[in-house]
């Protein structure tokens, strides 16, 4: 009878198997292909975070048969789906293990004795000292010496390209995860003179899954919005002044512009590209009830074309449709005298229409509307994040790494003593065909004795 002894795998063998699996070229290739596939899927299918709910509904209606599968696999939110997170973690783990291996390899190749080249050994009639000098002039550094063998390397830093690249990818992924988990962003649309206090609601708030509610540490007031235009009415620059109003009430003013953010108490404040006019309306019904309202509408793009918006006012059961020209005379975009036209609509029925400039009143169905004042408004984005420096450093390292790899191909020259003379051999670790003439050139410089 034959007894079969089954070996119980130890923790070490299990770990080794996992390590081998994660370092396998096929695994890495599969991970790259899967990540590429995920990004393509997110680019092709509508995503919840970019498409509006209406667009999503339209897509689901159009592709009703595949839509349930689409949702089941999280293809409508690829980057926040569990499978994508798993893929990313696997990729990160593979990169980390690979980074460790790559660094060991780079260290060994840079400072170790290296492998004896399989190519030709050529005798040269020079002293070791002269060889040193000649190598130095040709850009080769002596990187190791063991026994009778000396190794000279051109671009030894080229060995570190892969390590830098891997480290860069690890930093980008880790920092992006930190950023996604902790970032706080808030959007405000403020009109000139409006104060936003800590705890007031945002127009839009986006917080990472580990972030607490985003509260401003101080009150912010928008003092002035300053649009500037080119002679063809295209927007030239949008700038603003905001005041930080601490609890003691002593305000301090700061300047902001598109592309010129402000660092403020661990936050960054951006001036958004959206701006327009805020119309201060007094709406009075036939019973004498007033509905003071402030309506913010985006700025028109042309002086002879209006911009449009629809809005509701609490307590009034009808819809308001608004359009406005930047200038009542349609002569300029930068005017303090805009023309606002309001239409009151019940379902599809128009109840009334009136056009107003500042100080004017008009009748709108059962209401009297007065345009009391007009001020500019603009959007402000507040952001508090950790990890951005890691993302950019990671990007930088990927570029440095790939640059070292492709721009600094490593070449090595080995020299060993034989009898009274020296034998030298050359090899390139990459793109050897491109440097085929290099060895001949070195031999010429040394004054070769003849090839073996």
């Amino acid at each position: 009878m034959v007894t079969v002894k089954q070996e119980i795998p130890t923790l070490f063998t299990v770990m080794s198997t996992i390590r081998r699996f994660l370092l396998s070229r096929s695994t890495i290739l599969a991970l790259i292909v899967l990540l590429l596939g995920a990004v393509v899927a997110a680019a092709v299918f509508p995503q919840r975070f970019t498409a509006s709910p209406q667009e999503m509904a339209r897509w689901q209606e159009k592709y009703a048969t595949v839509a349930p599968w689409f949702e089941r696999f999280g293809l409508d939110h690829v980057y926040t789906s569990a499978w994508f997170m798993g893929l990313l973690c696997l990729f990160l783990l593979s990169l980390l293990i690979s980074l460790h291996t790559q660094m060991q390899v780079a260290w060994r190749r840079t400072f170790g004795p290296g492998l004896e080249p399989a190519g030709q050994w050529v005798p040269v009639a020079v002293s070791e000292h002269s060889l040193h000098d000649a190598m130095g002039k040709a850009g080769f550094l002596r990187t190791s010496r063991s026994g009778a063998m000396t190794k000279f390397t051109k671009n030894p830093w080229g060995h570190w390209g892969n390590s830098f690249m891997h480290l860069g990818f690890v930093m980008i992924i880790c920092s992006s995860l930190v950023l996604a988990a902790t970032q706080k962003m808030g959007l405000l649309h403020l009109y000139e003179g409006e104060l936003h206090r800590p705890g007031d609601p945002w127009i839009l708030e986006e917080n990472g899954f580990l972030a607490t509610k985003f509260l401003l540490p101080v009150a912010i007031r928008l003092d002035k919005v300053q649009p500037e235009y080119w002679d063809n009415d295209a927007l030239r620059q949008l700038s603003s002044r905001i005041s930080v109003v601490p609890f003691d009430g002593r305000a301090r003013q700061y300047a902001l512009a598109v592309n010129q953010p402000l660092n403020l108490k661990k936050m960054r404040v951006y001036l958004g590209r959206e701006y327009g006019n805020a119309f201060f309306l007094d709406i009075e019904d036939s019973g004498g009830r007033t509905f003071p309202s402030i309506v913010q509408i985006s700025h028109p793009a042309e002086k002879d074309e209006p911009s449009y918006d629809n809005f509701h006012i609490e307590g009034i059961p009808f819809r308001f449709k608004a359009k406005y020209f930047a200038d009542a005379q349609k002569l300029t975009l930068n005017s303090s005298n805009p023309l606002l036209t309001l239409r009151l609509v019940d379902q599809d029925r128009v109840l009334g229409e009136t056009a107003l400039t500042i100080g004017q009143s008009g009748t709108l169905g059962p209401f009297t509307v007065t345009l009391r004042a007009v001020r500019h408004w603009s959007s402000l984005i507040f952001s508090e994040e950790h990890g951005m420096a890691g993302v950019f450093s990671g990007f930088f390292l990927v570029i440095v790494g790939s640059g070292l790899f492709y721009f600094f191909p490593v070449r090595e020259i080995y020299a060993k003593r034989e009898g009274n003379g020296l034998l030298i051999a050359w090899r390139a670790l990459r793109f050897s065909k491109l440097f085929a003439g290099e060895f001949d050139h070195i031999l010429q410089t040394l004054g070769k004795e003849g090839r073996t």
Partner: protein
Amino acid sequence: MIDPLVIDTGLHWIAVVLYIIATVINCYGLVFHRQKAERASYRVAVAGLCVHGAALLYRWIVSGHGPYIVKYEILSSDAWLVLFLFLIFQRMYPKIRFASLVVFPATFLLIGIGLFLNPASRKLPPSLRSIWLVFHVAFYKIALATLVIALAISIFFIIKKRKDPARLKMLPPLSDLDVYAHRFAGFGFIFWAIAMLSGSIWAYQSWGRFWGWDPIETWSLITWLGFGLYLHLRRFFGWNGERAALLFMACFALSIVSLFFVSFVDSSIHSAYFR
């Protein structure tokens, strides 16, 4: 006073004529092994490059911004950089001189397409006023230039492999072509990465996000990953020769889609670009 647009397009037409002459002489020189003619074609191409460069500089001064927005200026500056970098690279690697058979015609074709589109300049919106945008655009152009050279090498690799090699003596051996294609694809990969990095810094500077999954951003990442896959397959899976050349051509097509077509398909933060 002469309309600046007339001067601009006039200079471009002169450059096109010079490039066409250079292409004809270059083809003659390479096909019939006339080194004198080939050398002359480079002199004409350099003359064209000077006129073309003057046209771009003039437009930059008149419009007040670099070639970032209008199709005409983007294609023209791409063409200029493709030729300029090719002239530098062919001095560093003389074996790639045959790539002029693709680079020279590509140059005048790109300008020609631009000239038949609306060349009127547009004013720069405030969000595009950033030094990072200059780097962002410049590195995409450099990446495109190196990829065009790699494309030329890949095309000639396939031609030489499939046709009678004796009739294509002007081309280096297949193994050399393969190495050059790999090297230039690597350059393209690096410059594409730098372009994405500078773009993400610009995005962060502009609206507080380094990445917004905007269609152009996403397709740019897909292209970069595609080139990464190509380089990975070459290095670790021994992909070389014809199948590597074909894969590179597919990745190159992807890069053209990302650079010139995605902006038409979807609205994006890059909406001012190439419209």
